[in-house]
């Protein structure tokens, strides 16, 4: 019996619950209106009124962090869902058809891999203007080849199983077999990959926002809070530390959770890490 509650799983799940909890709570309640400025109360230290103090414009930091968490989760969720569903569909298709179609899809995926996400997002922003949706599209796009490759690899293994042969012998077509037999059986590696991609998406969103290509003011985001705090680094370092810690908690949480899930679903890969 393998241990289910590995340290990775516990720490990862705890961090994820913390960050997702912040985001969810912000939907119904924040300590203050996050965009409310107060010039007489700039750089306030932590207090009963402002839990984590205020920033250079007198806005409540805790409230901003919570709304930023929600923005970040939304971007990551939509991007991974979009990229994931397209990628999984392509992977299943490639695996079901095989031959030159499979080769073609996978070579296109290889080309997709070659696109640096940030440069792609910058390119998109140059065309469509910076916005949260450009960030979502860019992150979704770079997720497609990742999921296509994972799905096709796992699906190729399932296609050799006897129950697929039995389904063919029962007269099922490739589409029906992909939907009823292949998809449920590749779900485990795909879910693991999705968790890890979620962490990467959060980091990418933070980076894009840092460059001003993500959420636009006044909508807060960790990345932009970080870049705004940059000039005040020596005067008010806490302004950079708080969003930095949030990014770290979110990325570390989803990464650890993804690794732990992979260890659980595939015991052979235990302790091995992809770069």
């Amino acid at each position: 019996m393998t241990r289910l509650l590995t340290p990775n799983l516990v720490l990862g799940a705890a961090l994820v619950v913390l960050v997702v909890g912040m985001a969810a709570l912000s939907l119904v309640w924040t300590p203050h209106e996050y965009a409310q400025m107060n010039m007489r109360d700039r750089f306030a230290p932590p207090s009963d009124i402002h839990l984590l103090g205020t920033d250079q414009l007198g806005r409540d930091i805790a409230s901003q962090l919570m709304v930023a968490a929600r923005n970040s989760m939304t971007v990551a969720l939509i991007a991974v869902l979009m990229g994931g569903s397209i990628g999984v569909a392509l992977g299943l298709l490639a695996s079901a058809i095989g031959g030159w179609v499979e080769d073609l899809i996978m070579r296109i995926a290889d080309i997709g891999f070659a696109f640096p996400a940030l440069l792609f997002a910058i390119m998109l922003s140059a065309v469509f203007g910076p916005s949260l949706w450009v960030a979502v599209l860019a992150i979704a796009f770079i997720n497609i080849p990742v999921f296509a490759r994972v799905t096709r690899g796992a699906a190729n293994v399932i296609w050799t199983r006897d129950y697929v042969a039995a389904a063919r012998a029962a007269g099922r077509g490739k589409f029906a077999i992909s939907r009823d037999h292949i998809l449920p059986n590749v779900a485990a590696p795909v879910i693991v990959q999705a968790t890890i991609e979620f962490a990467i998406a959060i980091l990418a969103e933070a980076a894009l926002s840092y460059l001003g290509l993500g959420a636009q003011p006044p909508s807060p985001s960790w990345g932009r809070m970080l870049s705004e705090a940059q000039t005040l680094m020596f005067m008010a370092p806490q302004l950079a530390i708080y969003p930095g810690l949030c990014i770290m908690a979110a990325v570390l949480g989803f990464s650890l959770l993804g690794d732990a899930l992979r260890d659980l679903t595939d015991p052979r890969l235990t302790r091995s890490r992809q770069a």
Partner: protein
Amino acid sequence: MMDLKGVSVGFGAAYALRDVSVSIARGERLGIVGESGSGKSMLGLTMMGMVPDAARVEGAIALDGAQLARASERVWRRHRARKVAMIFQEPMAALNPLQRLGETVMEPLQVHLGLSRAAARDRTLELFAEVGIPDPEARLRQYPHEISGGQRQRVLIALALTCDPSLLIADEPTTALDAHVALRIIDLLVNLAASRQMALVFISHDLAAVARATERIAVMYGGEVIETGPTPQVLQDPQHPYTKGLLGARPGIGGETPGRGPDGRRKRLPTIPGTVPPLSALPAGCRFSGRCPVELPHCARVRPEPHRVSGNRIATCHLLGGRA
């Protein structure tokens, strides 16, 4: 109803099946025996149109008059389940671990026969009862890992029967089962063949199982059928040296044991020397040359012709003489 004439299945220069002619009549039970690598499973897949993509199929495959040797996957799909169905060696591996048993069997009923969910459910219960699954109601909601190997094989038989096929191909259906469970599965298959007027192709290396399950037998070696005839006659009076070797290599029970030799030691079980060569290294003449104890000088070069031993018995060996 299914007629294979001179069927070969090739991969590059190597042939997994060479010039195989077999025909199965409605309601007939045919056994296919041979060692691992003899091509018996490939023959089963060929009858289902499920040879690997890389394979090249030559010859003529007729199913109820339809010519299928060069048929596309789309054409084959119309015949699978409705005319030919198949069950597999590993009943665990042949069931989707994430699918309830009821869903697995109901699926083709809904898709192929257009039954409603409720009707498919009722039909599934009937099929479960027909193949001897106790408490069919409870089985519907169970997953493959919750039932025994014999029950899984019964579920797979029920799945194969969904569209009332006229031919059932059983590829080593009892190899993975306990001996007493295997016997019951064999009896079930024989009874189903009789009650449904369904032909049965029973592929196995277990001669006792084939003797119990079939009326006629085809012995395969190196991708060729080397001897055919009524099962009791072939097993009692084999004509081809390979069949003789195969039968001699069976361990006996009780009085059939080899007994003791003149030096007082137990006689060793006779074996066929060597192993089946890989497909690419099979001799061009008789496939069995090189391992044959009664080989003639020209056996390795010249292909023997099928020889009619008696009424419906054919063996392919130079020792038996000319054409059938």
